[in-house]
């Protein structure tokens, strides 16, 4: 039904001499691969292959879910993992399908690109012999000025025109194929953009606690999680950032209504400057974008050891996912109880406090879940542990989980549980104290650099524009032949004579329901000597225009 021919990229490449059978096989496979049918099958396969990635947990989306899946299905999970089911979109099978599809795509558009350039440069084809056989056909009085006038009228309507003697051929709608090629080429560019991003891009995640102690500088070591593309060197763009204030607003029901992070940044030697960012408006620095992904509270905990030395740490308590921002965390003091005189470290006197922080604790126990994300009734519940933490030394509060082995083998013991309000302190059995001094806000940052982004954007625009050209433009041809004057006297031709007739025919090369109407109008223009006001007087052959007035 379409006037489109099934276009295997190489049109009927007749098998020439009996060549190398291997070459013949290759050529055949290539032809198969670049056929429209193959593209169709591959597209379908691609859609099917994307399903497991949405059904099974994915490491790239949520690594914890994958861990949970492993726990729930200890037998199945390793098998699935081996076939890449948890990284479905970078798995061998998924990649194979899209790489084949894109090979097919390139193999498909290259010859079409060549053909199209040729078509753009060629003149519209000669007028066929029997115009009456075309879907649209009409005979009307010839305009003054003959072929030249017809050509001019068509050109004014942005047809591409070729005049050959008394015959005029015109074609319109090349933009369809142009659009189609732009669309398919953009697909390739999208893939290139993605590849650029994954080779040369990097990303890191970390928490940033408000205040001067929380300053972070952009180096690999400072990220909790960092992913570097294979072509990224060790040097990340240099900048440092301090969170001054985090403003979060909430509705009475606890739903967030707005966030705003106020920071001070200094980029590569520049003077520190204030900046702000929020959930939908990242901070765009030179060579990196900083995105706000989450937020929470970091209780400030001070521990005073048996030598009277105090250490304070603001430990980000990770939110547990409820709307009230209940947080869970661990404050570890591995350097506690070091004798200041001898500098001797007693491994068995290291301290850790795990706890639960409720910004708005309920009035009655149990105190397990905060009722609102703002701090209306802050309560910190701490469990104290003493013993060997299983790490030699470190920054206070830098670990998020207790080493369970140490608990099991008795080298670390629980000494008690206590609920603290801001300002309260708790004296432990050995006379040391822990004090809850208040909280700081912290935010979760994703810092990213993706050099493919610009290309992605440009090619996406190409994608949409090309698609529109491809789907909305119609390719069609019109042929005009000036007939010799006087129907009874075919040989006495004065082509430019006022009484002569002109035969007009039209051929939509793609489905085009409005073509009959357009054709009728053209006929009117031609027949009316360029005046469109006689549009309705001659409809050409009415029976034929049935093909589709809109």
């Amino acid at each position, binding site marked *: 039904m379409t006037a489109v021919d099934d276009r295997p990229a190489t049109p009927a490449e007749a098998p020439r001499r009996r060549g190398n059978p291997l070459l013949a096989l290759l050529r055949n496979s290539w032809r198969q691969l670049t056929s429209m049918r193959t593209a169709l099958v591959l597209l379908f396969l691609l859609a099917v292959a994307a399903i497991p990635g949405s059904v099974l947990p994915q490491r790239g*989306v*949520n690594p914890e879910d994958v861990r949970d899946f492993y726990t729930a299905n200890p037998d199945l999970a390793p098998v699935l993992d081996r076939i890449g089911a948890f990284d479905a979109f970078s798995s061998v099978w998924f990649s194979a399908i899209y790489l084949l599809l894109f090979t097919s795509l390139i193999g498909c558009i290259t010859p079409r690109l060549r053909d199209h350039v040729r078509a753009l440069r060629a003149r519209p084809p000669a007028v066929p012999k029997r115009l009456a056989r075309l879907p649209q056909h009409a005979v009307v009085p010839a305009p003054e000025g003959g072929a030249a006038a017809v050509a001019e009228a068509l050109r004014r309507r942005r047809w591409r025109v070729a005049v050959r003697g008394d015959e005029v051929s015109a074609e319109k709608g090349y933009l369809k194929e142009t659009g189609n090629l732009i669309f398919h080429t953009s697909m390739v560019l999208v893939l290139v953009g993605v590849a650029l991003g994954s080779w040369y891009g990097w990303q890191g995640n970390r928490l940033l606690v408000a205040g001067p102690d929380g300053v972070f500088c952009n180096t690999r070591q400072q990220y909790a999680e960092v992913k570097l593309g294979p072509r990224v060197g060790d040097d990340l763009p240099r900048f440092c950032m301090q969170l001054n204030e985090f403003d979060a607003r909430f509705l009475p029901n606890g739903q967030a209504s707005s966030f705003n992070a106020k920071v001070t940044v200094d980029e590569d030697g520049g003077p520190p400057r204030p900046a702000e960012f929020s959930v939908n408006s990242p901070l765009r620095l030179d060579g990196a974008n900083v995105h706000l992904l989450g937020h929470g509270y970091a209780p400030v905990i001070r521990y005073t050891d048996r030598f009277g030395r105090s250490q304070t740490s603001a430990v980000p308590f990770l939110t547990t996912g409820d709307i009230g921002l209940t947080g869970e965390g661990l404050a570890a003091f591995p350097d506690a109880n070091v004798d200041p005189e001898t500098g001797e470290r007693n491994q068995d006197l290291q301290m850790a406090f795990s706890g639960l922080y409720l910004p708005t604790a309920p009035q009655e126990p149990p105190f397990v879940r905060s009722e609102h994300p703002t701090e209306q009734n802050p309560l910190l519940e701490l469990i104290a542990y003493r013993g060997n933490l299983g790490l030699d030394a470190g920054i206070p509060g830098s670990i998020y989980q207790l080493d369970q082995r140490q608990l099991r083998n008795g080298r670390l013991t629980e000494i008690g549980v206590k609920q603290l309000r801001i300002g309260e302190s708790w004296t432990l059995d050995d006379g040391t104290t822990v004090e809850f001094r208040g909280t700081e806000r912290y935010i979760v940052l994703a810092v990213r650099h993706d050099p493919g982004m610009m290309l992605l954007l440009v090619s996406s625009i190409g994608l949409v524009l090309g698609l529109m050209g491809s789907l909305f433009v119609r390719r069609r041809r019109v042929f005009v032949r000036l007939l010799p004057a006087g129907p009874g006297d075919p040989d006495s031709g004065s082509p430019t004579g006022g009484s002569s007739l002109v035969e007009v025919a039209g051929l939509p090369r793609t489905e085009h329901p409005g073509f009959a109407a357009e054709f009728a109008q053209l006929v009117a223009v031609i027949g009316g000597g360029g005046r469109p006001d006689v549009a309705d007087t001659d409809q050409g052959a009415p029976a034929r225009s049935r*093909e589709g007035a809109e």
Partner: protein
Amino acid sequence: MSALSDQLVSIATLVYLLAMISHAVEYALGNSRARAVAAPSRELVGAAVGGAAASGTVADARDAAGDVATAGALAAGGTVGGAESGAGAPGRAERTAWRAELGGRIAVGLTAVAAALHLAALVTRGLAADRMPWGNMYEFVLTVSFIGVAAWLTVLVKWPFLRRLGLFLTLVMVLLVATAELVLYTPIVPLVPALNSYWFIVHVSTIVFASGLFLLGAVPAAAYLMRAGYEDGKRSFPYTLAKRLPAAAGLERLTFVLHAFSFPIFTFAVIAGAIWAEAAWGRPWGWDPKETWAFISWVVYAGYLHARATPSVKRNVTAWLAIFGFLTVMMNLFGVNIFFEGLHSYGGL
């Protein structure tokens, strides 16, 4: 305002139901004129248009339905008509036909009324929430279905002979709106900050629009499959329903027109979503379940367009692809929010 919106939704559902019943009445009574549409139009056109051009376009069917009151109807009556209005007197048949026509017109009127109520429900909901009414699944489904019905009414103005498809459309509308109301209902809350962005508005409005058109496009695709089977002489259950549908070729074309129109919009919508995701989450694409299913829909619809441009692929296959594509859209709308958990699970379900 919020309560008003809820009431409007309930009333709209009822009116859709009434429209559906009227369509069913029209269906049951039959319509002697429309019965003529199918077979002859194809042949007329086939004869009129030489080999190259399309045979049996939407316009054909309309023309045929309009002009071919007598001769064509008789010719067609041989295959289709006759039997079902009973062997009664011509007067009775005429009256039945007239009643069917009336039923159809009432159905369309009711659909329009329901659509107006539906729109009013959306507007009041938006006013009550002080934002665009597409912050959660309830609002989302309501908006998508409204786009579907609005597009349907537009199509009807252009091609009134398609009216009989209204039975399917109103059925889908009743199902969607009732599901929204009974299962997905969420009280009004403002958008969470992540959704508060221009790109989000652009993204969601275009996704909603494209989904509405895909919804509408699935109707003639399904009708085509039934009608094509009927025209091939199949007389078993689902095909018999197609007895009074417009010509298969016209339905097929309509399917294509709707999909060709909505595919670029959908493409744009997905891109807008990627731009928004880049700003909100720092990555344009992360294979979150919602994104994955949008990708699947996109690929399936690209497959549909390809298949349709490939002459060696049967039109039945392309119609199935369109339906399959619509199922993936539905999967994204309902299934993903219900079965999977991802960044998009703000759905409020």
